[in-house]
């Protein structure tokens, strides 16, 4: 199973900008001052799932604790700059206390033109998280038969559906890709059904003024 590339967008500006950003420092140092032993272990969860392409464009980002948009962007950019500076053939793990607070870990996997990134804390097992990415990719592969970056770009809401089946509120909910597929297909079917009804483009005045 691998993610294939059917094409990637030419993008040239990323790396420079991103690096500057990081050098400027991340104004997220606050919680770190508490100390490495401080708050770690209180919140045990997956903190974020991100997908970005090798040029640093976010393809999907989900943070399991609310963060303002700017903060999210900053984190995505910082994560990308760290990832893009990693040499080949090194471990898939990173300790990124500086971005996500004490005891934060990051696992990433590089498929063709995409980085899949999971951010979590010390209570999770890095190798297992790596396999969770694998589960996600395998599922996507089944969804889109030989998934590529474009599938992910153009099926934004389906991506979220799949992800929501796997990780729910920051906890791993389901890891059987067949099971996930089943759920997603069921949703698709039902949606398609309800869709065909509403395909008749009826005027929306009813629900607009309805409330």
């Amino acid at each position, binding site marked *: 199973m691998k993610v294939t590339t*059917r*094409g990637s*967008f*030419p*993008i040239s*500006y990323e790396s420079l900008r991103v690096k500057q950003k990081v050098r400027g420092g991340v104004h997220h140092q606050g919680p770190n001052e508490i100390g490495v032993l401080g708050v770690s272990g209180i*919140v*045990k969860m997956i903190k974020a799932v991100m997908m970005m392409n090798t040029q640093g*464009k*976010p393809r999907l980002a989900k943070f399991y604790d*609310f963060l303002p*948009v700017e903060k999210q*962007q900053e984190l995505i950019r910082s994560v990308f700059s760290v990832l893009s500076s*990693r*040499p080949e053939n*090194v*471990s898939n*793990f990173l*300790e990124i*206390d*500086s971005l996500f607070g004490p005891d934060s870990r990051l696992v990433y996997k590089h498929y063709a033109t995409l980085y899949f990134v999971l951010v979590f804390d010390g209570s999770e*097992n*890095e*190798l*297992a998280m*790596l*396999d*969770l990415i694998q*589960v996600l990719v395998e599922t996507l592969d089944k*969804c889109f038969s030989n998934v590529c970056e*474009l599938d992910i*770009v*153009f*099926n*934004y*809401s*389906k991506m979220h*559906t799949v992800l929501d089946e796997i990780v*729910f*509120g920051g*906890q791993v*909910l*389901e*890891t*059987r890709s067949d099971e996930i597929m089943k759920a997603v297909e069921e*949703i*698709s079917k*039902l*949606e*398609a059904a*309800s*869709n065909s009804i*509403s*395909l008749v483009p*009826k*005027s929306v*005045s009813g*629900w*607009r003024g309805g*409330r």
Partner: protein
Amino acid sequence: MEQLKTIGRELAMGSQGGFGQSKEFLDLVKSIGESRSKAEEDRIVLSEIDILKRKLLEPDVPKRKMKEYIIRLVYIEMLGHDASFGYIHAVKMTHDDNLLLKRTGYLAVTLFLDEDHDLIILIVNTIQKDLRSDNYLVVCAALNAVCRLINEETIPAVLPQVVDLLNHGKEAVRKKAIMALHRFHRKSPSSVSHLVSNFRRKLCDSDPGVMGATLCPLFDLISEDVASYKDLVSSFVGILKQVTERKLPKSYDYHQMPAPFIQIKLLKIMALLSSGDKSASEMMYMVLGDLFRKCDSSTNIGNAILYECIRCISCIIPSPKLLEDAAEAISKFLKSDSHNLKYMGIDGLGRLIKISPDIAEQHQLAVIDCLEDPDDTLKRKTFELLYKMTKSSNVEVIVDRMIDYMISINDNHYKTEIASRCVELAEQFAPSNQWFIQIMNKVFEHAGDLVNIKVAHNLMRLIAEGFGEDDDDADNKLRLSAVESYLQIISEPKLPSLFLQVISWVLGEYGTADGKYSASYISGKLCDVADAYSSDETVKGYAVSALMKIYAFEIASGRKVDVLPECQSLIEELLASHSTDLQQRAYELQALLALDARAVESILPLDASCEDIEVDKDLSFLNGYIQQAIESGAQPYVSERERSGGMFETTDYHSQDHHEVTSHALRFEAYELPKPSVPSQPSAALVPVPEPSYYSEPHQPISTSSSVSERESSEIKLRLDGVKQKWGRPSYQSSTSASSSTPPQAANGTSTHSDGGGVVSSSSSKPRSSYESKKPEIDPEKQRLAASLFGGSSSSSRSDRKSSSGGHKPAKGTANKPLATVPKESPIPVPDLLDFDEPTGTSDVAATDPFKELEGLMESSRQDGGGSTDVMGLYSTDASAPVKTTTSVDSLLSELSDSSRGTYHQSQTTKGPNSKEALEKDALVRQMGVNPTSQNPTLFKDLLG
């Protein structure tokens, strides 16, 4: 490009299935993908925002269109732009009956809104309704939203429905309901505390998936309160057993492993439950052992479970067999080519080292490889491991490495961390004060702005107090070396402020102390500092105070003071400074210059920075004055408490008679002065507590100007809290003593060896010599490093080392004697072991003493291998086994002990060649950083005859 577009379109159409998007959206995505700069992207997104704003306001937007607009809003928010203008539309969409639209609405609001957003109130009602829906997909969508959008206040609104859903017919719903409840528990434990039993109940759900989901909240609950879940240990063990025995449906297999994620979660829970609990731990031995045997270490997920087992074992009270299994798994990880596994191996090593300190030694070369790996993550992990295994014997090598790494990185966050670790290790294990100061200099120089100010104060205190023994000579040498090193460093540009403060203070106190440097030289340097860092008031303050001290010492010793012109101008500049603190210091300095030698000496005596200054908090010396004032009609002082209470009975306070006033005395706190802007006054700089200058510093001219006479007459007894340093010296003392005993310890050890020699079982010698016969060829550099990292540790704890030499056949050493495992697992710090050892060596200890037994084992192996394993063997090129350095370190140590023992133990066979080799070895030991101390000559005498 054209082709790409078509592919994209095809794709989008092809995989529509309800998720398709319109051409406009595709074009948006595409044009953003093709944009060549951030500016271009921003332009595109901004124009998209304009379009959306317009379109959303159009009347009668078809629902389908609206849905797409929402998705486009989500998309532009992912790109970092504000889409808040459209939030309300997403909220409205959740109200729709159409599942597709509803789901889109929920998706958008969960991404857009946080739980305290104003719009949430518009959604809660819908969520309530949807939770009761017949369509389980609607319920799932609502549960999803519940997780994200419900805050503490709205929990009660949905709680009943969520609880009902725990018994829903669909397992997917039950799972999500559990997760939602779990989320509530996190947000507000009190609101669901009465429902916690549901989690226990759901553990027995008919669906394994639901059971798996229940483990998440249980893990949380158990980590909060282990005791009340102890009864579940057997259930968890049972579940894990069933999972590993493939009792679950085949569909739970992942890469041929049965439900690995559930296994991992169970292991985590059991680690919590069995931590420090012998009986609970014992229940797990079986299943853990099975896991080690069954896990497929060729797959990633198999290794994940293995790692989790290691983690579990490091928490529980493991059996020797399990420890062995864990050690074996770790060595597999470390030997792997995968960086991921190496990382896990290092991590596991760091965990196990706490219960089995010897374990790292088998892997020293692997660890050193990781240290030099290009992978930063691995490197940091390895530094963490080294930090955990630092002892007085290897502290120098480790801290040196850490500092090199610290200098090489730019990441301030990690730099701070590693700097503070260096300081911590240096404080704890420093072999000598000179070394400590060197390390501190490096840390300050490269990370001075990142370290805690306490570190600087501690360093100053160390320099001022020295060894604390009555060895003034050594103290003076230490100070001189500090002064010299600072004079060298001081001219470097851009030193951190904190470091300059230390430098100024030390130069002021001790710059001229031994006459090597003239006062004008030092004061010139101090002026340079004040000039070069003129924007830093703290540094300037320190510099001026240092100048004052230097002049004071000059005056006191009867020499004529020539104030350098630049000093003069500095003082004049500061006299007009905006900073009152600097101004005060300048005036004090000026005043001091005009005083005679006797007065100056009493103000600033030489090297008195450590004299305790006693503070009389009661200010009893003022009693007479108060008495007088009251007699002459002044009103007595009323404490703050009484004041507030007696506000309305002011007439009353005359009745509060005198003695009450005096018994309450004066509340010191009420009189405390505002803190000076400089954290501490120069001569009290050792004291971390910023002292109000009036009371704390009888040596300071500040106060003299106002109250010298008064003070002299009343004999103030000032007493500074915090003067008794808590952390500083004891650790140095102990560490110095530990380090000084390191080399001779080998000699001491031999006596123990010969004691134990009688009890020797020769079994351990066999495997050893076989290892020796297949030593790999390894870079001598690396060898040396390994030896200094690990060898040092082994040389300082023989009992540790024994188990490593026997570690490959641990059963042999331990099987028949459970006692023997004790030292292996004991987390006793090494120096303690040593202190322990010395008496055992000389006095007669019960034959069951495990240490001695172990040493006995050691001894035998030494005798066997002694001849062949000389230090040159380190460089010799024979066979190959990873064990190599362990044994060579062994040999090295045994050689040392051997040779030193030569006088009273007859090992003639080895004696001859040894003396020369031992010399070489000693050189090696020195290289490795084990400090030779005064006892070394004895060692040599022994060696040479």
